[in-house]
């Protein structure tokens, strides 16, 4: 590399752009995570439920969102879904950062589909006799879940959930295609303005890697601190 010069992409102006992008990527991850987790739990419970319609719904959501590339889904959420909304809702959306709202919507359903499967497999890993015993003792289905099954399942579920969080963090970069001004979008702006692609993407790679490694470290810590107990 004859003239590798990191300083060229870290001038005040470019640093400001990259920092804005980094913060928005973090925000996208955080907001999506907070919505995706309850949604994923709901989908997982649907799939485990004894009601056939709920099982069908859970199955459809998981297989639908998990099996379509995220890039396609984001373009769909941005260019197609808003056109199907009622006029008033649509104009409200377009006046309020549609790029961010649509990115969160797309990432949420995609991430929730994967998280739901991790939650479901974690619950299924708790022997079914535990649930049967709780039911036999007179707990309702939900109470058996809450008091007996889920506390055991959480230890199994959390590490793969952290892994999905890692994927979510990386997947935010795809939102650049719908004009969401996250880190990748700002990186492309800096590259265009500075003609320094190698330096720009070096900085961006390090930023993604730093956060990814933090999330990985969290997973390692959790598994040491709360190991899965054999029932």
């Amino acid at each position: 590399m004859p003239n590798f010069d990191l300083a060229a992409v870290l001038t005040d102006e470019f640093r400001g752009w990259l920092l804005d992008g980094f913060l928005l990527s973090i925000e996208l991850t955080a907001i999506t995570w907070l919505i995706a987790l309850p949604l994923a739990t709901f989908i997982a419970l649907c799939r485990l439920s004894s009601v056939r319609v709920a099982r069908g719904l859970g199955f459809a959501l998981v297989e639908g969102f998990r099996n379509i590339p995220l890039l396609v889904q984001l373009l769909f959420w941005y260019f197609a879904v808003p056109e199907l909304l009622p006029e008033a809702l649509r104009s409200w959306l377009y006046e309020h950062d549609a790029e961010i709202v649509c990115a969160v919507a797309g990432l949420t359903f995609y991430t929730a589909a994967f998280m739901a499967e991790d939650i479901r497999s974690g619950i299924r890993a708790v022997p079914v006799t535990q649930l049967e015993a709780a039911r036999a003792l007179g707990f309702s289905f939900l109470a058996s879940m809450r008091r007996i099954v889920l506390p055991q399942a959480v230890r199994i579920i959390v590490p793969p959930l952290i892994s999905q969080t890692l994927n979510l963090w990386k997947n935010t970069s795809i939102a650049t295609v719908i004009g969401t001004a996250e880190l990748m979008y700002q990186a492309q702006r800096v590259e265009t303005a500075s003609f320094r692609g190698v330096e720009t993407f070096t900085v961006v790679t390090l930023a993604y890697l730093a956060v990814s490694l933090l999330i990985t470290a969290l997973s390692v810590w959790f598994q040491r601190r709360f190991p899965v107990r054999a029932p």
Partner: protein
Amino acid sequence: MKPTQALIIAAGMAAVFLSPVAFSDQLADIRKKGELVCGVLGTDEPMSFIDPATRTLVGYDVDLCQVVARKIGVPAKVKQLAVAARIPELQQGRVDILSATLTHTKEREAVVDFSLHTFITGQKVMVRRDSGIAKLAQLAGKKVVTVKGGTQEPNMRKAVPTVDVVTFETAPQAFVALQQRKAIGFVNDEVSLFDAYGKLGAAQKDYVVLPESISVEAIALGLRKNEPALKTLVNDALRELEASGAAEKLFFKWFGPNSRLKYGQRSFKIDSDRI
């Protein structure tokens, strides 16, 4: 080691290390390879786009590529590039020249060479008529859309500093965003903008192209830096094109009264590379 030996070794090493730089000539490489690879956009009618009838890339930029290839004496091959990928692809040698609506700017001179200007166009903004906007200054604080990686975004911000610009991978995507009312304006090169306007058909009454330009763009072919033989040949080919009148014909083929753009006259000549 005798000084003469050292000198011979040093000269030998210098020859090994410097020769690819000192003697490499892209023009000779292209001749040896037997084809000229031109980077085009393919999403920028009528500069370069996919002809729906033949499913091949055609347009003003594609014809210019063929003019250069004919001059070299090899067949032309066009490769489709994203706006933002143009200069990196040229620098990394994946295309031989750029024929991709590339604006000649001072900043870009640091990384690529430019041929004579092949087209002069302004950059303008198309707005929705119901926005009530008639002047550039009224776009302050409003959202406009355009394509990533070109001069559109920086020029727009220069013209109206407080404008909010959102960019997409291709110009047609940005135009869809305008049509879906996700933004108030769509920024692009004048020809591409008028072409998009022409395609609107009956919906034209809902849109206005603001008369003020945000900039005047000199479009040129992009060449790798320090390739004097190729640059001379390209410019010779362009000068011949102008002198023979073929350049004029090429302009009217894509922009003239029979095209969607209906330019009655050509306001520039291919004779300068100054900006």
